[in-house]
C-alpha cells in the first residue's frame, strides 16, 4: 500500500498536467502538494525499515514474475527520502514560489508532465526489487530528462541534450549488458528460476556464482551506471547537461538522479563482493574515484561558467563517494552520509544559481559582479551554501568528509588520503576565488533583481541550510540507524 502513496502522486500530477491544456497555475500547486504525499510515504518507509520491517509489494500474476516486485530496505529508504525531499522542494519552488515565469504556457505544461514522470521513474528505480525493473526505470529517467533540458531550443541546449541522451543511453545499454551477464551466470548455475533477478535471490545465490563472469559483469555495470552517476572518465555529459538545464531540473539531476545511480552501483558492488571478496570492486572504485577527483580539481580551476563549475564540483563529490564506497564499512558509512549531505547542498545551489542566471542573464562568472548588492537574499545564501559545499564546518559535508578521511587512515591509506586532501584543497581555493569575484565589486549594469530575490521566495531554501547545519552539528538517531543498516547491506 505504502508504495502506492509513494509512486502514484507524481504519476497523477503528470496526468493532470497532460489533461489541462493550456497549462494553468493550479497544476503546479497540485503537483507540489502531491509531492508532499510522496515525501510522507518515503518517511513512513524509512520509519518502517528503522523498526526492522522491510515493506514489500507485488502482483500475483502467473509467469510474469511480479511477486514482490517492489521492496524497500534501509538503503532504498535512505535514497527515497532524498529523492522525494528534493522533488518536493523542486516542485514548490517551480510552481508558486519563485516560479519560472520566463517560460510560456506550452513549455510549462511540458515541464510539469515530464518532471513528474522523471521523479516517478527515479522512485521506481529505487523501490524495485528486480534488477531488470530497476534498469528499465533508470533508462526511463534518461528519456524523460532529455525532454526537459532543451525547454528552450537553443544551439547549446540541443547540443547538451544530444550528448547527454547518446552518452547516457550507451552507458545504460552497457549496464544492461552487465545485468544480462549476471543473469547468464545465475542461469548457468541454478537454472531458470522465477525472480532470479531479485536482489534478495541474487544476494542469496551470489556465493555460488562464477568469479570470472561476475568480474566481467561488474565492469560493464560500473561503466554503465557510472556514466549515469558521472564518474570520470564518463562524466563529460555532466557540465553540458547541468549548464543547459532549467535550474529545477539541474537540481534534481545533480542530487536525486545522482543518488539513484550511486544506489545502483552500491547494490551491484554488494553482489560482486559476495562473489569475489571486496578487493576487486574496491580497486576499480578507488581508481575511478581518484580520476574523478583529479579531473574535477583541474576543471574547477579553469571554470568560467558557474553552472559548469557546479557540475565539476559534482564530479568531485562523485569521486569522494566512490572512494568512500571502496574503504570498507567505515568508508561506506561516510559515503552514504556524504550522499545525503550532497543531495541537500547541491540541490540548494542549483536553485540559487537559477535566480542568479535569471537576474544577470549570463552563466559566465566574469559577468557576475556585486551579487550581494543586487540580490542580497540569493547572494547571501549562495555564499553560505558554497562554503558548505566545499566542506567547511559547521555544515554536514564537513562531517562526512572528515568521516571519509578517518576511514582512509583506519585502513592505512595515508598516501591516498594525502592526495585526496591536496585535490580537495585545490577545489576549495578556486571556489573561494570564483566566489569572491561574484559576490563583490560594482554590480553589472542593467541587472534587475526581480521578484525572485524576495525573502518569501527563497524561504524554502532556509530549510536546506537548516538541515545542513543540523547534520554538521549532530547525527540524528533515526538517520544514524538508517545509515548503519544500509552499510550492513552494502559492505560486510
Amino acid at each position, binding site marked *: 500500500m505504502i508504495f502506492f502513496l509513494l509512486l502514484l502522486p507524481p504519476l497523477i500530477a503528470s496526468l493532470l498536467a497532460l489533461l489541462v491544456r493550456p497549462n494553468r497555475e493550479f497544476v503546479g500547486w497540485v503537483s507540489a502538494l502531491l509531492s508532499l504525499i510522496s515525501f510522507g510515504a518515503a518517511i513512513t518507509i524509512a520509519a518502517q525499515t528503522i523498526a526492522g520491517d522491510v515493506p514489500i509489494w507485488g502482483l500475483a500474476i502467473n*509467469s510474469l514474475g511480479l511477486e514482490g516486485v517492489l521492496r524497500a530496505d534501509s538503503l532504498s529508504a535512505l535514497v527515497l527520502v532524498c529523492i522525494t525531499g528534493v522533488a518536493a522542494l523542486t516542485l514548490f519552488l517551480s510552481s508558486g514560489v519563485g516560479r519560472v515565469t520566463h517560460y510560456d504556457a506550452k513549455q510549462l505544461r511540458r515541464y510539469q508532465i515530464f518532471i513528474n514522470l522523471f521523479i516517478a521513474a527515479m522512485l521506481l528505480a529505487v523501490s524495485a526489487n528486480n534488477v531488470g*525493473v530497476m534498469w528499465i526505470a533508470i*533508462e526511463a529517467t534518461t528519456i524523460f530528462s532529455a525532454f526537459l533540458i532543451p525547454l528552450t531550443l537553443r544551439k*547549446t541546449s*540541443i547540443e547538451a541534450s544530444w550528448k547527454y541522451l547518446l552518452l547516457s543511453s550507451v552507458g545504460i545499454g552497457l549496464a544492461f*549488458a552487465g545485468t544480462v551477464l549476471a*543473469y547468464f551466470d545465475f542461469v*548457468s548455475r541454478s537454472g531458470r528460476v522465477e525472480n532470479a533477478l531479485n536482489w534478495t535471490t541474487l544476494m542469496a545465490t551470489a556465493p555460488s556464482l562464477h568469479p570470472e563472469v561476475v568480474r566481467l559483469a561488474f565492469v560493464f555495470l560500473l561503466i554503465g551506471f557510472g556514466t549515469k552517476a558521472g564518474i570520470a572518465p564518463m562524466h563529460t555529459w555532466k557540465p553540458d547537461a547541468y549548464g543547459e538545464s532549467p535550474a529545477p531540473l539541474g537540481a534534481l539531476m545533480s542530487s536525486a538522479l545522482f543518488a539513484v545511480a550511486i544506489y545502483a552501483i552500491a547494490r551491484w558492488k554488494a553482489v560482486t563482493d559476495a562473489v569475489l571478496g571486496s578487493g576487486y570492486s574496491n580497486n576499480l572504485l578507488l581508481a575511478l574515484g581518484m580520476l574523478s577527483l583529479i579531473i574535477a580539481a583541474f576543471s574547477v580551476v579553469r571554470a568560467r561558467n558557474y553552472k559548469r563549475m557546479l557540475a565539476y564540483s559534482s564530479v568531485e563529490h562523485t569521486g569522494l563517494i566512490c572512494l568512500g564506497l571502496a574503504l570498507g564499512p567505515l568508508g561506506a558509512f561516510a559515503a552514504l552520509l556524504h550522499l545525503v549531505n550532497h543531495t541537500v547542498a547541491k540541490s540548494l545551489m542549483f536553485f540559487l544559481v537559477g535566480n542568479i542566471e535569471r537576474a544577470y542573464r549570463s552563466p559566465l562568472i566574469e559577468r557576475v559582479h556585486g551579487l550581494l548588492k543586487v540580490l542580497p537574499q540569493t547572494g547571501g545564501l549562495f555564499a553560505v551554501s558554497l562554503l558548505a559545499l566545499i566542506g567547511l564546518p559547521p555544515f554536514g559535508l564537513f562531517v562526512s568528509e572528515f568521516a571519509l578521511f578517518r576511514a582512509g587512515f583506519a585502513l592505512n591509506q595515508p598516501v591516498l588520503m594525502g592526495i585526496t586532501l591536496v585535490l580537495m584543497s585545490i577545489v576549495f581555493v578556486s571556489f573561494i576565488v570564483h566566489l569572491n569575484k561574484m559576490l563583490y565589486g560594482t554590480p553589472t549594469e542593467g541587472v534587475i533583481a526581480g521578484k525572485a530575490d524576495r525573502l518569501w521566495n527563497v524561504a524554502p531554501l532556509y530549510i536546506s541550510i537548516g538541515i545542513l547545519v543540523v547534520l554538521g552539528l549532530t547525527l540524528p538517531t533515526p538517520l544514524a540507524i538508517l545509515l548503519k543498516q544500509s552499510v550492513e547491506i552494502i559492505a560486510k
Partner: protein
Amino acid sequence: MNDALFSQLTTLGSSVILLYGFTLLWRKSLHAYTVAFQWQSVMLTGLFLIIGYFGHDVELYLVAGFLFILKVLILPRYLGKLEQRFPGERESRPYVNVATSLVVAGLLVLLAYAITRPLVLVSDLPTRGGLPLAVGLIFVGLFVIITRKKALTQIVGFLVMENGIALLAVLGTYGIPLIIELGVFLDVLMGFLVMQVFVYHIHDTFESIDVDQLNELRH
C-alpha cells in the same frame, strides 16, 4: 545430433547478425544503414524462433513477435522517414576511415573472444558458441557511435548495440524474463523516438545533421 544442429544454427545466425553490423562500417548512404539494421533484426527474430523451438520455450515466440514488430516494422519505417527528410546526407567523411574502421572492428571481435572466454567455459548451453559474436556486435555498435559524424548513423549504431545485447541475452540465457524484455522494448522505442525528434531539432538549428558542429560548449 539435434544439439549439434542447434549449436551450428545459432553460431551461423550470430555470425550473420554480426556481419550486418559490419555493413555500417563500409557503407556510406543512410539508406544502406536502415536496410542493414532491418535485415539484422529479421535475422535476430529468426534466431529467437530457432532458440524457442530447440530450447522448448514458448515465451520466446512471443518475444520474437514483439521484436519483429518493433525492430523490423516500426523502427525502420521511422528511419526511412528521416532519410527522406535529409536526402543529401551521407556519411562521407567519418572520423576514422573505412579501412581502419574494418581493421579496428576485427580487433574488437578478437577482444570480445578474449573477454568472453570465461563465459563460454562456464556455460553448457549449445548456444554458447555465439556469445563472443554478441559481445563483438556490442563493441562494433559502440565503435560506430564514437567514430561516425551523422546523428542518424549514431542512432543506428545505438540500435545495433541494442541488438547485440538482445543477442547476448538470448544466447546466454534463452531470454531474460518476459516482463523485463517488454520493458526493454518500450525503453528502446521511447529512446529512439526522443532521439529522432532531436535529429530534427539538430537539423533545424544547425542546418545539417553533422554532430561535429556540436562544439559550442566549453568550460
